[in-house]
């Protein structure tokens, strides 16, 4: 275009690659796209392989950053002003109620999505250490486990910010459980709250963690998580495609004339390229356009669903935090209710001795589960073929145990959410509940 002046088309130039080479260049040269693969197998693009749950989680996180970024301008992290500033967001800020509703529902959805993502990775054996040369998927699994805990941390710290009764007592219960750690429990609680009770220092700590510290870790680790996928040779399902291509190649060697046409762009740097290229090429397509289109579509859908839910289910704001009035029962955030339920089950009386289940149910059990999750890639002895395959027969037993534990946690969460009333006694959801009285 040199010499013939400026054309508005220049704005769009480069966005429509015309050859596979240009498509690959766009991925390699564009900062935003460089995390995407140059080529992608059709199986990785399919919905069934992964459910695209990681992408969905990432996009929910983006929605949270967008809405949270605006809320940062409106919310005041002081115990005198926090509640009133949330009321103002609800009642006088333009689009405020929508913004807050969307932020809240997205936070709940992200917890759900990140857990589903983990379940998918487990059931497809995608964390397995047997991979292409240079790949080490367990590392990304560990990053993922940390990302999940960061998600819980973000949700938990955000819970306190409205400074209403729900916030105050959920955090009181949550930090009491953390305080049951033997020997250092009180110190842990003190570190979290900056005092003996939930007060101004706790609010400030949770605010800084929620708005700056945890998101910073999150963003860094998400980037690392995605980069690791490239370093591990793409999704685990790709390993299967590569292996199958190799099998076929052994039977019918490819014509050498076809090996470089499609794979030239990749320069032989990743796992796909290390395999017989002509056969693999048949199974794959240029990554850029397909993935960008898919990713943008998922982002739009996620943003739209979060926005619509934010409109349909506006966030509640209970009475202002009141240390003198304990709701009965005081419940932790829903995703921790299976732990609170465990604590209550494990708390019982033998004669005159009260056995406190806080440490057992609230610290030890989740600690063991997280430890098991983290070490599982090293303990899993299933063969390499089990990676990237749903419910591989060789992993039948571990899948069953995993699903059983998951099922138990889900059941306990449902019980804790819907079937527990005053004094953590059993109630039926349809029983009339009087709540507490009103003033007049």
């Amino acid at each position, binding site marked *: 275009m040199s010499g013939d002046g400026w054309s508005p088309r220049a704005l769009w130039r480069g966005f429509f690659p015309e050859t596979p080479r240009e498509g690959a260049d766009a991925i390699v040269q564009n900062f935003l796209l460089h995390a995407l693969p140059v080529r992608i197998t059709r199986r990785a693009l399919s919905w069934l392989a992964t459910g695209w749950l990681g992408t969905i989680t990432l996009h929910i996180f983006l929605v949270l950053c967008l809405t949270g970024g605006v809320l940062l301008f409106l919310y005041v992290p002081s115990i005198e002003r926090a509640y009133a500033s949330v009321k103002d967001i609800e009642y006088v800020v333009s689009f405020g109620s929508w913004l807050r509703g969307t932020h809240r529902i997205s936070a709940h959805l992200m917890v759900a999505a990140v857990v589903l993502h983990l379940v998918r990775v487990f059931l497809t054996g995608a964390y397995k250490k047997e991979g292409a040369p240079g790949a080490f998927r367990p590392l990304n699994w560990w990053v993922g486990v940390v990302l999940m805990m960061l998600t819980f941390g973000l949700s938990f710290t955000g819970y306190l910010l409205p400074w209403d009764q729900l916030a105050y007592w959920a955090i009181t219960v949550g930090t009491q459980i953390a305080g049951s750690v033997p020997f250092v429990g009180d110190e842990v609680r003190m570190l979290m709250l900056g005092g003996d009770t939930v007060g101004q220092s706790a609010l400030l700590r949770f605010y800084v963690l929620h708005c700056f510290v945890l998101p910073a870790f999150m963003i860094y680790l998400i980037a690392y998580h995605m980069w690791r996928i490239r370093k591990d040779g793409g999704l685990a399902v790709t390993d299967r495609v590569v292996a199958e291509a190799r099998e076929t190649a052994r039977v019918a060697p490819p014509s050498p004339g076809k090996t470089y046409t499609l794979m030239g762009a990749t320069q032989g740097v990743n796992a796909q390229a290390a395999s017989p290229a002509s056969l693999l090429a048949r199974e794959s397509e*240029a990554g850029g356009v*397909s993935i960008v*289109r898919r990713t943008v*579509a998922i982002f*739009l859908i996620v943003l*739209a669903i979060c926005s*619509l839910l934010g409109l349909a289910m506006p966030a509640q704001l209970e009475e202002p935090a009141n240390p003198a009035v304990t709701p009965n029962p005081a419940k932790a955030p829903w995703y921790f209710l299976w732990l609170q339920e465990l604590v209550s089950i494990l708390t019982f009386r033998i004669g005159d001795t009260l056995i406190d289940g806080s440490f057992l149910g609230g610290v030890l059990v989740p600690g063991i589960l997280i430890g098991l999750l983290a070490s599982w890639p090293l303990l899993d002895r299933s063969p390499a073929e089990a990676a990237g395959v749903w419910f591989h027969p060789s992993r039948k037993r571990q899948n069953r145990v995993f699903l059983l534990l998951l099922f138990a946690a889900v059941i306990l969460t449902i019980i804790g959410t819907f079937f527990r009333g005053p004094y953590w006694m059993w109630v039926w959801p349809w029983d009339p509940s009087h709540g507490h009285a009103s*003033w007049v």
Partner: protein
Amino acid sequence: MSDFSSRFARSDFRLLVAGGVLLLIAFGIAFVREVDPEWADAQDEVQAIVQERLGAEKAAELPTGIQQIWIEPLDRVDRCTTCHTTIEWGAELAEAPHPARSHPQGLFGAHPVESFGCTLCHGGQGWATSADAAHGNVAFWEEPLLDTERAKRYGLSRSELMELRCAYCHQGLEPVDGMPLLNAAKEKVFDCLDCHRLPGLENDKPSAPDLGREGEKHPSKYIFPEGFEGERSVLNWHIEHFLDPKKMSPGSAMPKFGLSRKDAAGLALLVMSWRRQDLPAAWTPKTGE
């Protein structure tokens, strides 16, 4: 070119369009809610009433947009005047339907609206800008508007029920002008000294609970008997308790006094007003005032 024709191109494109459409719907709903809020309809209503009764010129003076009375020393903001724009318009709108009705001007003398706001006396949620929330008829709002309908549940008139909020500031056992129900209760309440300690009055040998701050006891602390029918409120608990102490508090040593329901309501409101008062000096009434 063929290399870009993904097997998923068509279905993904449909997804892209669906996402865009859904997003437009969401933005559309949010936009409509933003430009046509509930309070704008109320302002239109007031506009129409003023136009009809006082003419277009007067109607043009009405404020638009969210209105608020901010009383910094009390840390209160009341947005009631967003809909009730004409509360200070005097006799001309004294009989007009709500939300256009003006406030009786007499009470504004001692309680100018710019330094007292609305909810301090009326109850309700000053922050809110929609009718249900502002009138406090929503979950998690503890101080509803003390309106005629609510007063009827206790066989009281609206002004009688509102004496509760008068008494939040006008404390003490001296009679106060404009609080007939509580003044009558204050005459009776000295009999309670036989057993109880009352606020500001010493009792050397109280044999019953100290009632000095009874009004601070949170609703969640009140226990209603099994199968209790009727209003589950602190006010009703006290009324029923005054009428028949053992019914509400089994094993209580308090005798029945044979009070009328109205007397019981007056005493109940008085007891509920016994709470600490946290007012800047300029807002604190003198004794008996």
